């Protein structure tokens, strides 16, 4: 992805959180957004 492009993730139960963190680390110039319904992000 190129600088300024928008990466949108829907859901944060298992996939979303790690995907967002790694995406931002690998592509810091990409705009990463996570949309989740739950009040909290579950870790374990």
């Amino acid at each position, binding site marked *: 992805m190129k600088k300024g492009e928008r*990466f949108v993730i829907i859901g944060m139960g298992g996939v979303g959180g790690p995907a967002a963190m790694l995406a931002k680390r690998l592509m810091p110039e990409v705009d*990463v*957004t996570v949309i*989740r319904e739950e009040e909290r992000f579950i870790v374990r």
Partner: protein
Amino acid sequence: MATVDSITNPDQMFADAGINLIIARATHADGEKKKVTLSDGREIPYDKLLLGTGASPVVPPIEGCDLRGVFSLRSAPDAVEIKNFLEKDNRRKLVLIGAGFINLEVATLLATTRPDYYDVTVIELLAHPLPLMLDAEMAVQIQEYLTEKGFKMKMAQKVERILGENGKVVGVELATGEKIEAEMVLLSVGVKQNLELAKDLGLEIGKFGVKVNKFLETSVPDVMAAGDCVEKQHFVTKRPVTGQLRGPAVIQGR
């Protein structure tokens, strides 16, 4: 049981990493206009989209599933609700319908938390516990172990109905006619993938969820999917299977 706060990461972690976090329900996705519509009416444009919409517990068409004291467990709030229900009035007679990971973990946790207190019956339609993960040879050993620990393991038994009085669960009736007293029933008989957005986007969907390739790309350009909402391939048989555990979902996310 661990508190909810102790098993969650603070949202600040994502903010510190420069990630935008929106807490809302995504109600619609448009693959042509490349935007997601939220429950509050906002529209979020994307260049690439990752669906991690997960799955929800299946509530079987059994009479009595709507009685007070009948639960399914998927999220932290569900666990808190169950814990509070058990602690109120010191309920101890429990029937767990389904002998998969969730119910067996719950049974183990209860036995560890208050040894010799709970009267736990586990009912499974198939012939042995963990039927989707283990063959009979291994599962029988688990069944024997759990029986030794005091669980009543009723395998190859069909639940006919959940019994109630005044809107509250009081027991479970099996197809054999046997009745088991219960102050709480936990239903864990599988999940169904959350596919509403995938259908909006016109993604190809298989028997067990969104079809993806080995790069987690779907049939629609710039849309990926991962986790419980996608169809997996069995490591040995290569046949399509459902996702069952959170661990692999997290690894897919990475």
